[in-house]
């Protein structure tokens, strides 16, 4: 028969083909995280969009002073920081499962995931840095 998979299967008919379970709860926790962070993001992102785009004047009133004014309050700092972290981890985990589903080779899977993790790390570090070290008194240059 031209089919090569059947010939391979006959080589070792009783060899286990599935690697042993890793016995950890990583997939469980990431599944739970997706549900909880999704719920939190509905509030955070819709609230953010409402404030930025609809509430008094919407997008036209946004300027440096507006952002500086918001970030002078720890509440908005916390809001934006949690939105950043939750969105990055939520989206990153979603992309991780998509890569797991659709990458055909282990090599492709590995490199796509590395690219994803590096991108996530860069955005998280950069965003966190800005939220915490934001200085409203930048000298006009």
């Amino acid at each position, binding site marked *: 028969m*031209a089919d090569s998979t059947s010939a391979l299967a006959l080589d070792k008919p009783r060899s286990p083909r*599935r690697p042993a379970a890793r*016995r950890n709860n990583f997939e469980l926790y990431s599944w739970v995280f997706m549900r909880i962070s999704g719920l939190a993001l509905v509030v955070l992102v819709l609230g953010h969009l409402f404030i930025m785009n609809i509430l008094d004047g919407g997008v036209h009133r946004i300027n440096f002073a507006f952002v500086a004014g918001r970030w002078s309050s720890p509440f908005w700092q916390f809001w934006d920081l949690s939105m950043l972290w939750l969105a990055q981890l939520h989206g990153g985990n979603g992309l991780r499962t998509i890569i*797991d*589903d659709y990458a*055909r080779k282990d090599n492709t899977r590995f490199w796509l995931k590395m690219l994803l993790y590096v991108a996530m790390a860069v955005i998280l570090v950069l965003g966190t840095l800005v939220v915490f070290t934001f200085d409203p008194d930048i000298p006009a240059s």
Partner: protein
Amino acid sequence: MTAVAESTVHDTSQIPAPEGSLTVTVKIQRFNPEIDDEPHWESYDVPALPTDRVLNLLMNIKNYVDGTLSFRRSCAHGICGSDAMQINGINRLACKVLVKDLLAKKGKQTTITVAPIKGLPTMKDLYVDMEPFFEAYRAVKPYLIAYGNEPTRERIQSAADRERFDDTTKCILCACCTSSCPVYWADGSYFGPAAIVNAHRFIFDSRDEASEERLDILNDAEGVWRCRTTFNCTDACPRGIQVTKAIQEVKRALLFKRV
């Protein structure tokens, strides 16, 4: 008569046409690994009674037109689960689908497309290699596991305890659900709905003592967490098992550490 070009008109005059029968076109995805590089479609205009099953049409084509047409079928009454195939794009048992449910609107020619189930390697025509499917099935230990001394009498179970897993005892391992799952198509390492259904059958059985073992297996990267609740499996099941619900119940058992 072997595989021929798609345009060939097949001589179906040998098929007996009982009174009241009408002509339907059966379009079958054919593949002969010894001749073809890839599958192709062939159409057969065959007489059919509205009360015929799709399996009758396939048997007529095999018996009177082309003996090389290959497909599995055994009991032909929806019990053995051999003849799972994609009929008009939906996974069904050919022996449970009636022609009258597939008829086109008045005056239009009825075409019934039949293809092998997806996600498993096609060996020939409608006949697929079921080994990956059964490998996943075996991996969840679908048998009673009990420790300690063997009881001297029957293992007693209350009606309520039996009811707990009643739905998943109906599985006939036809692979309709697993081969309708997009996650299973994308990467064959996912256990698939059928294996989880059969794990569910023992996880929630009060007589079984290895629930934790099976939950551990399904907690892995290839286990229940890959389910995206698309409900394809529930739609496909010819036994009406609430497959997605069973998968969710396994997830819940893992989440709350409670069976």
